[in-house]
C-alpha cells in the first residue's frame, strides 16, 4: 500500500509534461552519431592483462607525466595571457532551443530578419538563408547582411557558414546544396548584378562567381497609356537560371533582338560558362516575341516566359507559361505544348498534351514541370480563367472563380503523358510539392496539409488548420473568404516521404509572432517547432 502511494506520488511529482522528450531527439542523436569525429564502428573490446607491478609502474610514470605537463601548461598560460590577442566578438547569436523567432521581437523593424530560402539535404542537415529585410530598394537604403546558417542536428544548433554584406538592391535569395551538404551555391534573382557564392567544402571556404558575361539582361520598351503613366520605360528581362545541383547549371538569356535566347551551361558552379547554343525562339518554340507596338499602342509581352528543366548535358525540356502557351498564329489552345531536347538544347521537338477535361481551354497555365529522373516527371497545370496571375488568392485578384489544378505524369521522359489528375476541390494551394513520382503534398491556403502516396489518386488531410499557429480562417479554402493579406509562406519541402520542413508563416505583429521552422518525421501528420538562428550582434 505504501509502495503504491509512493509510486503514485512519484509519478505525479516527476511528470515531465507533454511533448517530452522532443520527437526529434532520436533522429538528432543519430545525426550526431554520424558526425565526422564520431562516425565509424564501435570500438573493439580489449582487455589488458597486466600484473599489479606493471600497473603500479604505469601509475608512477603517469603521475610524473601529469606533473611535467601541468608545469608546462602553467608557463604557457602565463605567457599567453600577458600577450595582446585580438578578440573578435561572435558576430551572430544563435538561439538554443524551442520555437525561436527570427529576431522579430528584439530588432528594430528595419533590421528584421528575413528568411529567403531553406533547404534540407537529409533529415538532419540543412541550410537557411537569412538576411536583414529590405523593404524598398533606393539610393539611400542601407546595406544588408546575408548569412547562410547550417544545422547538422535538425535545427537544434545552427552555425553561420557564409556571411556577406550586399548593397540593399542586390539580393541573394536561393540556396542549392548537394546531397552530402558539402557543395553549396548561393545565388540571387537573375539580374545582371547577380553574384553567386560557391563552396565545395561545406562552407569552410567560399568563392565568388558570376553569371556568364553574355547573359546581360535584355530590356524591353514598355509603353502605353495604362502603363506607368503613359511613359515608355526600358525594363530588364532577366535571364533564367536553372541549377540541377550546385555544380551543374544553365542560364537562358534573351538577346536584345527578342528573337534569340542564349543558352549557357556550367559544370563547375559558375566558375566557367560555355555558350551551348543560340535558340531561335520563333523557329524552335513558335513564339513570336517581338517588341513592336500593337494596334492600341501597347506592346506585346516580349518575355520568353516558361520553365526550362535540364538533366545532364543532353536532356532538356521547356514549357511556355500563360499566354505564351499559344504558339503564334494558332487558335486558343486545346492542348498544351511541351518542348523536349535530347541534345542539350540544340534542337527541340514539341509534344502536345490535351487540356484537362472540364478545364477552360482559354487560359490554362503551367505551374510546375519537374523530372525526378530521366524518365519520370510531372507537369502541374492550373486552370485559372481570370486576369490575375496563376496561384494568387482570389480575394486579391478580384475574382471568385475557383482555381483548379491538374497534374500530368510521364514515365518516358516526356514523350507521352498520363491523363490529367485533378487536385481535390475546393482548395487553394499556396503550393504543391512533388517529393517523388508517387508522394506529393499540398499546402492549402487556410492551413493544414494534404498528401497523396499514389500519385494523386487518393488524398488525405494529414494536419488540420492551425498546426503552425496560423490564425484560424473562417471558411478556409472557400472562395472569397480569405483575408487579402493572409501571411502564408511557401518555403517548405521534403527530404523523403517522411521527413519534411516548413517555414509556414510570416509575422504580421512583431510583438507576438515571428518566423518558425517546423519539422515532421511522419509525412506531415505532426509538426514540431525547432530553433532558427537569430541575426544579431555586430
Amino acid at each position: 500500500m505504501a509502495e503504491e502511494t509512493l509510486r503514485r506520488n512519484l509519478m505525479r511529482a516527476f511528470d515531465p509534461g507533454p511533448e517530452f522528450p522532443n520527437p526529434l531527439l532520436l533522429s538528432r542523436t543519430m545525426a550526431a552519431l554520424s558526425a565526422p569525429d564520431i562516425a565509424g564502428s564501435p570500438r573493439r573490446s580489449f582487455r589488458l592483462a597486466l600484473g599489479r607491478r606493471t600497473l603500479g609502474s604505469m601509475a608512477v610514470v603517469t603521475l610524473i607525466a601529469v606533473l611535467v605537463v601541468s608545469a608546462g601548461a602553467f608557463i604557457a598560460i602565463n605567457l599567453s595571457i600577458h600577450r595582446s590577442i585580438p578578440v573578435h566578438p561572435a558576430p551572430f547569436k544563435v538561439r538554443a532551443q524551442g520555437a525561436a523567432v527570427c529576431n522579430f521581437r528584439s530588432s528594430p523593424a528595419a533590421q528584421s530578419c528575413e528568411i529567403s530560402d531553406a533547404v534540407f539535404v537529409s533529415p538532419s542537415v540543412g541550410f537557411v538563408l537569412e538576411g536583414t529585410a529590405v523593404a524598398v530598394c533606393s539610393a539611400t537604403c542601407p546595406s544588408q547582411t546575408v548569412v547562410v546558417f547550417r544545422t547538422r542536428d535538425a535545427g537544434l544548433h545552427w552555425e553561420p557558414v557564409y556571411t556577406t554584406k550586399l548593397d540593399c538592391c542586390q539580393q541573394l535569395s536561393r540556396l542549392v546544396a548537394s546531397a552530402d551538404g558539402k557543395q553549396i551555391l548561393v545565388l540571387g534573382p537573375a539580374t545582371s548584378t547577380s553574384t553567386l557564392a560557391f563552396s565545395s567544402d561545406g562552407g569552410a571556404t567560399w568563392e565568388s562567381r558570376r553569371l556568364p558575361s553574355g547573359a546581360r539582361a535584355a530590356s524591353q520598351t514598355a509603353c502605353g497609356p495604362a502603363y506607368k503613366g503613359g511613359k515608355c520605360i526600358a525594363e530588364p528581362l532577366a535571364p533564367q537560371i536553372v541549377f540541377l545541383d550546385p555544380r551543374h547549371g544553365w542560364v537562358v538569356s534573351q538577346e536584345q533582338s527578342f528573337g534569340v535566347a542564349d543558352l549557357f551551361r556550367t559544370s563547375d558552379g559558375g566558375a566557367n560558362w560555355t555558350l551551348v547554343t543560340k535558340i531561335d525562339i520563333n523557329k524552335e518554340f513558335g513564339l513570336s516575341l517581338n517588341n513592336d507596338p500593337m494596334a492600341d499602342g501597347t506592346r506585346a509581352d516580349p518575355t520568353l516566359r516558361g520553365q526550362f528543366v535540364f538533366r545532364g548535358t543532353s536532356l532538356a525540356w521547356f514549357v511556355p507559361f500563360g499566354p505564351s502557351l499559344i504558339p503564334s498564329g494558332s487558335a486558343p489552345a486545346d492542348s498544351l505544348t511541351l518542348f523536349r531536347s535530347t541534345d542539350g538544347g540544340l534542337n527541340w521537338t514539341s509534344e502536345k498534351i490535351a487540356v484537362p477535361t472540364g478545364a477552360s481551354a482559354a487560359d490554362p497555365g503551367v505551374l510546375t514541370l519537374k523530372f525526378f529522373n530521366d524518365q519520370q516527371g510531372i507537369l502541374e497545370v492550373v486552370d485559372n480563367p481570370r486576369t490575375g496571375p496563376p496561384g494568387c488568392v482570389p480575394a486579391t485578384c478580384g475574382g471568385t472563380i475557383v482555381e483548379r489544378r491538374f497534374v500530368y505524369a510521364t514515365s518516358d521522359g516526356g514523350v507521352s503523358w498520363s491523363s490529367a489528375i485533378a487536385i481535390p476541390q475546393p482548395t487553394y494551394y499556396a503550393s504543391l510539392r512533388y517529393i517523388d513520382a508517387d508522394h506529393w503534398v499540398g499546402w492549402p491556403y487556410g492551413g493544414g496539409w494534404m498528401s497523396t502516396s499514389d500519385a494523386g489518386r487518393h488524398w488525405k488531410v494529414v494536419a488540420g488548420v492551425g498546426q503552425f499557429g496560423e490564425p484560424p480562417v473562417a471558411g478556409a479554402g472557400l472562395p472569397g473568404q480569405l483575408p487579402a493579406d493572409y501571411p502564408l509562406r511557401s518555403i517548405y519541402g521534403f527530404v523523403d516521404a517522411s521527413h519534411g520542413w516548413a517555414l509556414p508563416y510570416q509575422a504580421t505583429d512583431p510583438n507576438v509572432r515571428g518566423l518558425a521552422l517546423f519539422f515532421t518525421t511522419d509525412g506531415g501528420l505532426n509538426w514540431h517547432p525547432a530553433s532558427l538562428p537569430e541575426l544579431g550582434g555586430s
Partner: protein
Amino acid sequence: MGEQAEQLLIDRAKHGDRAAYERLLAPTVLPATRLAWAMLQDRSEAEDVFQEAALRAWRRLANLRAGSRFQPWFIGIVANQCREVRRGRWWRLVRVADAFTTAAPDESAWLEGEDLRRAVLALPHDQRVAILLHFHLDMSVTAVSAVLGISPAGVRTRIKRAVRRLRPALQVSEARANG
C-alpha cells in the same frame, strides 16, 4: 522486440550498423529521458544526457556482453551520465536559479510534489536511481538490478532505505494532494 531479434540487432550494431543501433535506441528514448529528467529536473539537460549516453553506448557497444539486454545496460549509462552532470560544478551553480523556471505540466500537481521531489533529489545517488527506476519507470527489481549491476537483494535494500527516508515527504505530499 524479442530477445533473439534484439541480439541480432546488437550484433549488427557492434559491426557498425547505425540503423540497427537506432532500432535498439528507439524503445529506450522514453524511459531514459524520463529518468534523466527526474534526476536533473531540466528538459534540455535530460535530452543532452540521452544524446551523450547514446554516443557513449555506441562507442562502448563492444563491452556489452553477449546475451545481455540492451535497455538495462543503456539505462545504466544514462544514470551514470546524470550523476556526472550533477557532479559538475557548472550544473550546481546554474540549476538552482533555473529550478523556478522549469516548466511544469500542471502547476497544482507540481506544487503538491515539491517536498517529495526535494526529498528524492536529496537521496544518495544509488538510492535515488533505484527508487526512480522501480517506482517512476515501473521496472521490476530484477530489471533494476540489471541496470545497477547489483543483486536483486541489494536493490531491495536500497529501495527500503530510500523509502524510509522519503516517508515524511510522502506524507506531506499525500496530505497536499488530498486537500
